[in-house]
């Protein structure tokens, strides 16, 4: 059979399956088609059956299609018998259903249930369809097929080709038996060696010869495939333990079996001869002496010594330290333990003792006993040698002094304040601010009681006092720099007061008053501000004080409308800047620059300074037209002449409390140096040339730093800070003219004296303009002069 035939057969099989599906689903079926197919199928099936037999033997089938075939094939004869039955049964069903929904029946008659035929007379004859008594019955089709012969044995029909009759009286033919199929199969010719497989190498159908098939079978059955091999051949016993009566050889036993071997004798003689000659010595146990001599060294081990580089991992055992004086049998008397030491030594556990022996004086050698722990000590040493892990430790053998940084001695750094010389008492409540006047004679203070007081610095005598505010504390007092006039600026509540205290000699007082009065003319000549403007941004008008205040020396009042916490004068004494750090203050009005000669107040900043909250404090640069403004986290430098932001300093503190600019560094070294104090306990030194970040961060205070200040004159490189922990710290901070060397900072002194009241210690500090003295204002209501 060729491939085409094979495929055709497969098609037939599939169609067969389809048809079956059709039957069960009740789909429309072409009767004629079915018939044709059926007949065809019958043939094909038989051939198929034969094929499948071979396939069974081969068992090569793996395809799904073949599986299907196998399923079919595996049903043996009974199924074969059934199928035709079923197929035969399929036809009548189709027939019966014709009237209801068959196409062919609808062709003949449209909707009538009778046929018109001509009878023998030529008349019309209506032939009605048989009425199905129960056409809604489900069992009708099964009943149609039933054999109606009743309860008689089938053997009665053995002679006939049919086995009974159906309900229509038609003969039910005997189904095809095996013999018939066989006969059919016999009639079909199959080529010899047909396997149904395709040789993959040639593409032609694979044909196997009988030998090959046999070989395959043997392989399959686990038999030896060789031809003619018999695994169960009968055993022939050629050699056995049975004594045969007749020997294989009849030769007599040779003589050599009875005579001693000459060869052996020869060999023995050889040994005997060797022993006689002394070549072989009989065994003698080695003597003791010989063993002794083995212990003795008889050669130089280091005859060809070669130095080997020391292994880096090898650590030689450390040597025991040499004995000290206390180990002597007759030590100096001071090494002998006192009674107490002896007692503690005896009481201590042997492991805890620092020395394993007690120094003893035996006086003379004959009195020295044996040392009881000798063996134990040596044993422990042995244990150490092989059990103790060795670690190399590098011991620093340097003088600890050399580690210390070289600092100038305090004597060289003198003078600096160290002693409290004067205490200024008089303020009720805290002293918020103080300032030493530029001549260094007076001290101005302002406190919670709303008074501004002026003291004689050296004696502590109060010279002048004015109560500028009844309820608000005086936040800050600052003297005007310059010796030509004496003006004190004080901020209390919302107002600024410019005071010429009546403590001066008349000429100076006159000069100061004239200076203050000069501005009124400007104020008067200036056009009055418009009402609309006045609301927000108009700078305040300087006012004359009330008569009571005017009598006590107040010359002018500036209503700032917000609480100013910081005043800083320009070095010429014509301007001063105030800062109102309150959070309610509008950004544009926080910083104000006041001109004394013109009685003018200006707000230089229209917008809020970026980053870091409201401004805290501001200072003019000591020599350049630069204004430094600090907000909570940064310090910014603005060039006033060019109106530019020059620099931003980032101290890294969370909340800057105060800062100060080195008075001379910009002229001496070209760069500015800044100290910044912060509420988070840090004191930061900035070198603006170096970086935005602090050059040194000093954290020696336990509480917030309130004020920092450089010594105003260039003579003493000192600075100080005041903290809430009640102490002032004095540092030496010198800036050299050399650009390469950094500023050297040396802590000098902690000044303690102020009592901490209400969590506050020292609130402000100031330096004497010429001497190395400093003044501090405490929360305890006192000020102190340190010198």
């Amino acid at each position: 059979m060729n491939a085409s035939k094979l495929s055709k057969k497969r098609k037939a099989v599939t169609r067969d399956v389809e048809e079956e599906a059709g039957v069960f689903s009740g789909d429309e079926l072409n009767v004629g088609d079915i018939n044709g197919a059926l007949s065809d199928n019958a043939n094909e099936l038989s051939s198929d059956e034969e094929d499948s037999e071979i396939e069974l033997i081969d068992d090569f089938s793996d395809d799904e299609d073949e599986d299907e075939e196998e399923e079919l094939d595996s049903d043996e004869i009974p199924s074969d018998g059934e199928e035709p039955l079923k197929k035969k049964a399929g036809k009548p069903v189709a027939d019966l259903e014709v009237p209801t929904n068959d196409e062919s029946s609808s062709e003949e008659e449209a909707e009538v249930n009778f046929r018109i035929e001509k009878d023998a007379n030529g008349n019309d004859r209506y032939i009605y369809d048989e009425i199905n008594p129960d056409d809604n019955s489900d069992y009708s089709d099964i009943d149609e097929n039933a054999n109606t012969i009743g309860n008689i044995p089938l053997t009665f029909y053995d002679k006939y080709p049919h086995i009974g009759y159906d309900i229509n009286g038609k003969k039910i033919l005997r189904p095809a038996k095996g013999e018939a199929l066989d006969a059919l199969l016999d009639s079909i010719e199959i080529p010899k060696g047909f396997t149904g497989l395709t040789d993959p190498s040639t593409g032609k159908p694979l044909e196997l010869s009988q030998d090959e098939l046999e070989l395959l079978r043997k392989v399959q059955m686990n038999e030896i495939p060789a031809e003619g091999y018999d695994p169960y051949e009968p055993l022939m016993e050629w050699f056995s333990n049975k004594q045969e009566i007749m020997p294989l050889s009849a030769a007599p036993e040779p003589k050599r079996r009875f005579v001693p071997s000459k060869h052996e004798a020869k060999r023995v003689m050889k040994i005997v001869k060797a022993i006689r000659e002394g070549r072989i010595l009989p065994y003698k146990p080695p003597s003791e002496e010989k063993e002794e001599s083995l212990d003795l060294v008889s050669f130089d081990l280091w005859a060809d010594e070669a130095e080997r580089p020391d292994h880096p991992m090898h650590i030689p055992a450390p040597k025991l330290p040499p004995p000290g004086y206390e180990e002597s049998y007759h030590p100096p008397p001071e090494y002998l333990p006192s009674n107490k030491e002896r007692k503690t030594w005896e009481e201590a556990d042997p492991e805890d003792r620092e020395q394993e022996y007690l120094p003893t004086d035996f006086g003379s050698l004959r009195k020295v006993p044996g040392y009881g722990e000798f063996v134990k000590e040596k044993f422990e040493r042995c244990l150490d040698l092989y059990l103790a892990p060795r670690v190399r430790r590098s011991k620093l053998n340097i003088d600890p002094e050399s580690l210390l940084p070289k600092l100038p001695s305090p004597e060289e750094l003198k003078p600096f304040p160290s002693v409290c010389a004067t205490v200024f008492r008089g303020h009720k409540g805290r002293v918020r601010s103080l300032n030493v006047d530029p001549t260094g004679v007076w001290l101005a203070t302002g406190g919670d009681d709303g008074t501004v007081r002026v003291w004689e610095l050296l004696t502590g005598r109060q010279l002048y006092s004015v109560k500028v505010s009844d309820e608000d504390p005086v936040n800050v007092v600052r003297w005007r720099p310059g010796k030509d006039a004496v003006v004190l600026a004080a901020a209390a509540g919302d107002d600024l007061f410019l005071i010429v205290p009546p403590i001066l000699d008349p000429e100076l007082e006159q000069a100061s008053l004239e200076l203050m009065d000069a501005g009124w003319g400007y104020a008067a000549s200036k056009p009055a501000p418009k009402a609309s403007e006045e609301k927000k941004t108009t700078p305040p008008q300087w006012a004359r004080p009330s008569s009571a205040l005017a009598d006590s020396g107040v010359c002018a009042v500036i209503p700032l409308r917000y609480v100013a916490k910081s005043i800083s004068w320009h070095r010429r004494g014509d301007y001063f800047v105030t800062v109102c750090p309150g959070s309610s203050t509008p950004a544009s009005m926080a910083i104000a620059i006041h001109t004394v000669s013109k009685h003018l107040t200006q707000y230089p900043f229209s917008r809020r300074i970026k980053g870091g909250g409201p401004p805290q404090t501001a200072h003019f640069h000591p020599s350049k037209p630069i204004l430094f403004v600090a907000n909570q986290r940064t310090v910014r430098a603005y060039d006033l002449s060019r109106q530019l932001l020059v620099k931003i300093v980032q101290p890294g503190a969370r909340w800057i409390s105060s800062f100060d600019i080195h008075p001379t560094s910009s002229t001496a070294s070209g760069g500015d140096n800044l100290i910044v104090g912060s509420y988070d306990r840090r004191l930061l030194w900035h070198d603006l040339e170096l970086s935005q970040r602090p050059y040194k961060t000093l954290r020696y205070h336990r509480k917030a730093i309130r004020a920092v200040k450089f010594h105003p004159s260039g003579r003493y490189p000192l600075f100080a800070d005041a903290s809430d922990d009640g102490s002032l710290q004095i540092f030496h901070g010198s800036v050299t003219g050399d650009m390469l060397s950094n500023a050297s900072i040396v802590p000098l002194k902690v000044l303690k004296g102020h009592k901490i009241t209400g969590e506050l210690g020292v609130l402000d500090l100031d330096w004497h303009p010429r001497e190395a003295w400093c003044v501090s204002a405490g929360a305890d209501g006192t000020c102190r002069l340190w010198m």
Partner: protein
Amino acid sequence: MAKIKKKGTSGQAKNFITRTQAVRKLQISLPDFRRLCIFKGIYPREPRNKKKASKSSTPNTTFYYTKDIQFLLHEPLLRKFRDQKALAKKIARSLGRGEVGDASRLEKNHAPKLTLDHIIKERYPTFIDALRDLDDALSLLFLFANLPSSAHVPPKTIALCQRVTHEFQHYLITTNSLRKSFLSIKGIYYQATIQGQDIMWLVPYRFVQRVNGDVDYRIMATFVEFYTTLLGFVNYRLYSTLGLRYPPKFDTRSDENGAELAAFTLEGRTVGEAPKAIEANKQTNKTSNQEVSREVQAKVDKVIKSAGLDRTKDEQVVESTEEASDAIDKFEPTAPEADTLPQPDLSGDQAGSLFAPFVFYVSREAPKAPLEFILRSFGCTRIGWDAVLGDGAFTHDETDTRITHQIVDRPSLPEASLPAIPAASEGAVQKVRPGTRIPGRTYVQPQWVWDCINEGKLLRADLYAPGATLPPHLSPWVKPTRGGYDPRASLAEQEEEGEAELDEESDSDEEMEDATEEKKADTKEESEAESEDEEDINGGMDVAETDDDESGSEEEEDEDFGGFEEEAASESEDEEEAARTQHQKELEAEAAGLPFSSGGAAGESSKKKSAQAKKIASKKRKEEEELERQKMMMSRKKRKLLEKMIYSNKKQSEEAAKLRSKRRKLEKGEKGGQK
């Protein structure tokens, strides 16, 4: 992506191996492993991170380097150990069968002999290496040479130890290389210098050693086995460099008579017998070695002369004194701040001439063995001793007129109290009454010999006369260090400024034993006084109040800058104030024309003293303040380092201060006694 590394395959996990793992790897028992480690000198290591090194969770494990163990795997001794194990099994089997003879034969003939020479060569590739490691070997061998034989310590081992140590001592005697010795509580320390290597060892006094239960003799025996082999090879090398035959001739009979060192006779090697080793050496490095060997030859000749002609004397002494002229000059620094360079302290020739002209006689009660060894190695060739002490003496006759020094260690008792000597029989050595002094010779206590050799010169013998209180015996190895206490120097030299006064004062204040308590009390008093002063001085002005209640020590402990400063500030403040007011008062008094006295005239001296003390205290405080100031400017790391150093220095200086105060007391007591 990089390959994922498996844990425990590299780094510390791989480099270290626990002891159990090592034993398993080597497939030997733990005692065998121990022996192997002792022989090969392998010791545990401390991994930098124990957790990383160990795979187990048990914390206490001993770690070895894996490479060390790898190295042990190739050890030929391992095979010997396994043979031994197999033999032990065989012996046990035959003993189990009752075949005692078989067992003993096996034990005798088949016991594998361990040879350690390859290990010694491996551990000490050069001879100098071996010398460097001789300290422990000598100490242990000298101990074993003095041990009584027991089940753990067979007499053979003891004899071997005695032999090698005596041989070594003989080498030291012939080369005069012993340098120092020290009589301690534990025993006698010796130090020798061989080929530039300082070797120090300890020899116990001759008493039966007390043995505790917790000493494992097997471990020590392993060490002894190794050390005897080592010292044997070292001796061979030392002898052969001198051209002496090794082993030296050993007279068993005289040894039995207690001759000890004298039982050995050193012999020179005949010329033809030149050792192969040296020949080989010559071939390898001719130029250098020939010179050396020539020198050696010269030395050898000399030694042979001296050794062979034991009884000849004075010529050599003269020679040696002449030779002393080309010895190194001593360099003394002229300024104290200069560095002192180390110099070899004593040359062999100098050492060899120290006792050369004298004839010593060692009395019965003096330790003969160490004395003989020391005297001989410092040039003395004629040493006599009592016949009781054994053979080998120059003379057993105490009355010998040649004797110049007699070493006596007995109390001087009145003659009457001594028992009379039974009349000596004819022929016997004439006995001398124990108390009598033979004129013409110097009687000294044994310590004199030790002090002489440590000083390198002969000391005054009268200080060491029998019955005299000896000067303290000092260790020759302690070098005076800065801040340490030196008993040789006078107290005044090493005291810190004002220490004595402070101490005295504290003594006078209260007689308390505890020095620290004294100090505390002292400071308290001071502070009280100060506070009083303060009130007087300040007058109208308010000065910052100092917290007097807090004790000074507490304040000091407080490292805080502020806390410390507070006190210091007030202190200096007070000082200055005090000075100022003092001056003011004086001026006032002057103006008034009155004699000024700061306090009552009665307590003036005491006041002065206290003022001085105060001054010192304040100065100290100032120094501390300064230190604190400097510390502030240091980085944290450096500060910690400094504090550590200061701590150790402080410990040392405290110890020194304690010793000084003890000595001060003693001296005071003496003075008081004299008054």
